């Protein structure tokens, strides 16, 4: 390289307890460059970013040089003040605070006496939102927003720090196509303006779309850096996984027929959220619900499962031909439903609990011995099985789930619901944060349980998932089902058009 890199890591290491998360990391980025960072779940990407963000301190001396001087931030504030700004992998906003408060947190405009300048704050927030095409009221509490908007807000928040180096950890997971484009445009634009960007993502097409260089991590090591222009996706995948990925034919094209109705939903209505939704799910079928964000996908999943807060005004359910109430999660679970929610942090994991305890929570009563005591041996076996089945990278079933990488946590949660042996499996954004290899495995797993007679419903804005995995798909628009696709009609462009227009595409 001609110019001295702006940020350079040499031989960075990090251990957690006994586990060496980073063994030998070499990495550098020049001014105005976009550098992709890819690797399997648990490879160490987030750990590296957290070190740069001042959250973790690396082992041993400082292997990091920034702007020509040694860089060793003690905390997030040090990093932020030196222009290194991070968008962390998991949603990092304060739910009880408003949009404006969140994006300007610790960066508020103040006037005389240190008083906030409320009008300036609102104007600033409104302008930022407009700039990123976000049509939301700055005074909305963040809790009330869907996940993708929250993700976008994190990006907006990062921009208020005027980054010199922007570290983006899976910035596009749970975003819709349109939003992904907004983010990618932003990345390109920032690079043009001289900001250096580290772009961590499991969406390799996005990585290839914006990055100048790609560094591949495996098992805590950087195994190499490639020029994007000199490589291909499959080459990168091979480096990541050490094996090839075979593109499979999409399921709908195989045209499997399913006739036995398993669950039928009629006239499901949640005022202001869901509008008169009726459909049948067949045994062995994988059904997809997609649409733009805000079209009510998560709400539908939750309304079926009977989550409190989803006040059903109307709606009847028939499971295996028998009417059922599905009044609350406990009842739904008993009837054979399972729901994987899309908010891993708030509604998914119990961070301090072991993998086993997370996995076995819904079925804990099954491990009761006649004495009333738990069969701890079997419980542990179940945890161990989950780790093996989903190839979770963990030190063992006793490890607290918070010590896992994001993608591995997601796998544990999928395992959790699988252990309930559901008849109907509702999956809301199941592949968030999952690496390409595992995504493939999870797809296979879902197909396998479908083949065993389970009815699966996937709720996702990820049209590729729908295309690959579903027998049939419904498109939602503002809480209403506006289209149904099957067979060869189940195809990306038709779905997208319907999602946007709210009208069935030809």
């Amino acid at each position: 390289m001609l110019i001295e890199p702006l940020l350079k890591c040499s031989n960075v290491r990090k251990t957690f307890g006994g586990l060496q998360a980073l063994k030998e990391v070499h990495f550098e980025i020049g001014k105005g460059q976009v550098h992709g960072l890819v690797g399997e779940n648990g490879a160490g990407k987030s750990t590296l970013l957290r070190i740069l963000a001042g959250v973790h301190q690396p082992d041993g001396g400082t292997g990091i040089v920034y702007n020509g001087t040694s860089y060793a931030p003690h905390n997030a504030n040090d990093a932020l003040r030196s222009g290194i700004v991070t968008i962390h992998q998991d949603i990092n906003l304060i739910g009880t605070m408003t949009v404006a408060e969140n994006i300007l947190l610790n960066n508020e405009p103040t006037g005389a006496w240190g008083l906030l300048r409320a009008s300036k704050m609102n104007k600033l927030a409104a302008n930022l939102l407009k700039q990123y095409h976000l049509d939301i009221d700055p005074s909305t509490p963040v809790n009330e927003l869907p996940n993708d908007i929250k993700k976008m807000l994190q990006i907006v928040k990062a921009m208020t720090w005027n980054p010199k180096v922007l570290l983006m950890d899976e910035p596009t997971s749970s975003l819709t196509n349109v939003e992904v484009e907004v983010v990618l445009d932003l990345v390109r634009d920032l690079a043009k303006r001289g900001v250096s960007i580290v772009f961590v993502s499991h969406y390799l097409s996005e990585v290839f779309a914006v990055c100048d260089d790609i560094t591949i991590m495996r098992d805590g090591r950087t195994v190499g850096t490639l020029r994007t222009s000199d490589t291909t996706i499959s080459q990168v995948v091979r480096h990541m996984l050490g094996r090839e990925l075979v593109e499979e034919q999409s399921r709908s094209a195989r045209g499997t027929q399913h006739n036995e109705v398993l669950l039928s939903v009629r006239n499901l209505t949640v005022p202001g959220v869901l509008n008169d939704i009726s459909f049948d799910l067949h045994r062995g079928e994988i059904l997809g619900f997609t649409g733009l964000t805000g079209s009510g996908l998560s709400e539908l999943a939750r309304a079926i499962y009977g989550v409190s807060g989803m006040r059903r005004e109307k709606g009847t359910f028939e499971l295996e031909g028998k009417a059922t109430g599905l009044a609350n999660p406990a009842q739904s679970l008993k009837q054979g439903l399972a729901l994987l929610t899309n908010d891993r942090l708030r509604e998914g994991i119990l961070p301090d609990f072991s993998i086993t305890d997370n996995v076995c929570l819904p079925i804990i009563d099954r491990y009761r011995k006649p004495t009333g005591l738990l069969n701890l041996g079997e419980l542990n076996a179940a945890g161990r099985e989950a780790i093996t089945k989903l190839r979770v990278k963990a030190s063992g079933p006793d490890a607290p789930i918070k010590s896992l990488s994001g993608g591995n946590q997601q796998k544990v949660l999928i395992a959790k619901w699988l252990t309930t042996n559901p008849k109907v499996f509702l999956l809301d954004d199941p592949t968030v944060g999952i690496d390409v290899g595992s995504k493939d495995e999870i797809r296979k797993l879902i197909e396998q349980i479908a083949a065993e007679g389970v009815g699966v419903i996937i709720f996702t804005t990820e049209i590729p998932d729908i295309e690959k995995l579903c027998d049939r798909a419904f498109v939602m628009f503002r809480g209403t089902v506006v289209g149904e696709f099957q067979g060869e009609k189940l195809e990306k462009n038709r779905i997208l058009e319907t999602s946007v227009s709210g009208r069935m595409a030809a």
Partner: protein
Amino acid sequence: MTMPITENAGANWKGTLRRSYGLIQSVAVLLVLVIIMSLISPRFMSVINIQNLMAQMSPALIVAAGMTIVMINGEFDISVGAVLALTAAVSASLMPQLGFVPAIFVSLFIGPLFGLIAGLIVTYGGIPSFITTLGTMMIARSLAFVVTGGQVISDLPPAFRVIGLARPLGIPLPFIIAMATIVFGWILLTQTAFGKKVYAIGANRLVAALSGISVKRTKIICLMLCGLAASFAGNILLARIGAIQADTARGLEFEVIAAVVIGGVSLGGGQGNIMRVIIGVVVIALIRNFMNLARIDIFWQDFATGSIIIAAVLLDALQKRIGSQT
């Protein structure tokens, strides 16, 4: 769907209304309480009783302002009652030599000092504030006994007593000071960057830290402010009563925490409105006052108090549930 940016004025107004909703409803519950009490005891609404109530609740209001900040920040301060007593004891015992202004001034350092010590232990030692301030409470109470020698200290300068006894425009000065403290707390919590940090840390300290907020420093400052409030209240109480003993304000911490929780501040932190805390303090003061006016049998007074507290909070919650359904 989502609201266009141009409608922001309207949305903001609605937002404000929505945020004030809890406050308005709590006021409604308070009104119900007041009406019932006035019906039972006609003297309840007399000017003099209201003046008394105002003066009586002033120290608790001031302490509640500090406690609200600490609790929104996600911590507790169990030491407030003891720090109040120690401050008043020091202030009273310094007055003869120093004069009352310097004595007050010196004594106002006690609370922040205790807050600083507790804050350092909580943040650097990683000890829960509940335990830490339980410890500092005992230390402060002990020192109060040492300072007073177990005696009542009295005979304070009349000029000082004025602070506790004056009633400009008929409103007791302690109450005016207390309200000013609450307003100060409100400004600090809602109109300053510091306030945003306090809420953010209480809601999610990890996110706050990742946003570059110095969690330790903020927590320490919150505890120091709460200590300052306790010291301030100590001087106000001293001026009102004109005497102090080491035992003063025992149990005040729980009365105030109860008031703060009744006022809607969550025990976990991150949420709450200091203005509603006033209502919490008023409810507790009203109940005590009411017990005295309504001539309820001694043995049954706690029963009535407990029931009224539960009923008032239930009523509040019930109303909110009905409100949120429309």
